[in-house]
């Protein structure tokens, strides 16, 4: 699980081009949207593509995404439960 969290943090930084953010700066329970990392609606859509491409999880409702992308911790739990690749 901690490997997956580490992997997610790296991917978030890379895929969302968070140039000034380091892996260590993202806490497992930090909010990704809003006051936390400050991600926006395009980032949320981009994370949906990442779930599909890298873990074989298809989300069709962006609102569902908002819950899953609450924090790295929540994301990792959801992925390990639903991943197909």
């Amino acid at each position: 699980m901690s490997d997956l969290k580490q992997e997610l943090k790296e991917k978030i930084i890379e895929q969302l081009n968070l140039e000034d953010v380091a892996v260590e700066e993202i806490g497992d329970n930090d909010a990704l949207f809003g006051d936390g990392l400050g991600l926006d609606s395009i980032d949320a859509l981009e994370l949906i593509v990442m779930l599909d491409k890298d873990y074989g999880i298809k989300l069709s409702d962006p609102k569902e995404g908002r819950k899953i992308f609450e924090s790295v911790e929540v994301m990792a739990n959801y992925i390990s439960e639903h991943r197909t690749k």
Partner: protein
Amino acid sequence: MSSNHYIQAFVHIKNETVSLHGNTLLAAPKTDFSTFSKTAYKELGTKYPKFFKMDRLSKLAFLAADVLLKNDKDPQENTAIVLSNRASSLDTDMKHQNTIADAANYYPSPAVFVYTLPNICIGEISIKHKLFSENSFFIFDRFNANYLFDYAESLLKTKKASKVLCGWVEVDAGNYEAFLYLVSDTGAIKHTIKEITRLYKL
């Protein structure tokens, strides 16, 4: 056609060099645009994390506009933005096309797709500088001072804008070039087609 307006300031970005009013602000060693734009971002003291999410065309337009607008002593919320180029957003269009070309690896990216319009770079500049103003993106075969002059004059004369940020921003096949100028009521250079053409060639 006569004009009571002036070219208040102008900036060039090309060949790893940023110059304001023809004076070099930054000259970096020869490299690709990604490396250069990062260097320029740091050296020019731009502080805007969203910069790294932008595509190449937006980065170029953003850097050039930032140099002009942050040095403007009399910033106006009603500064129109009128940009032009030849390749539109083709640099990013190809990137999006690559994500959909293969049915077995079909993962279109919203963060790429959103930049497949040339005027997105105008949006980026507007957001950073809080400009609730007129926008237009034109595509010409080559730099067209006549049309840019007419359009800027029309915006100023009809009071649709109090200043106009005009110019050319091109990213295509590994090359890049930006020339932006700010037209307003004050300045040392007359706003004429001849002067625009002269400055462009500097």
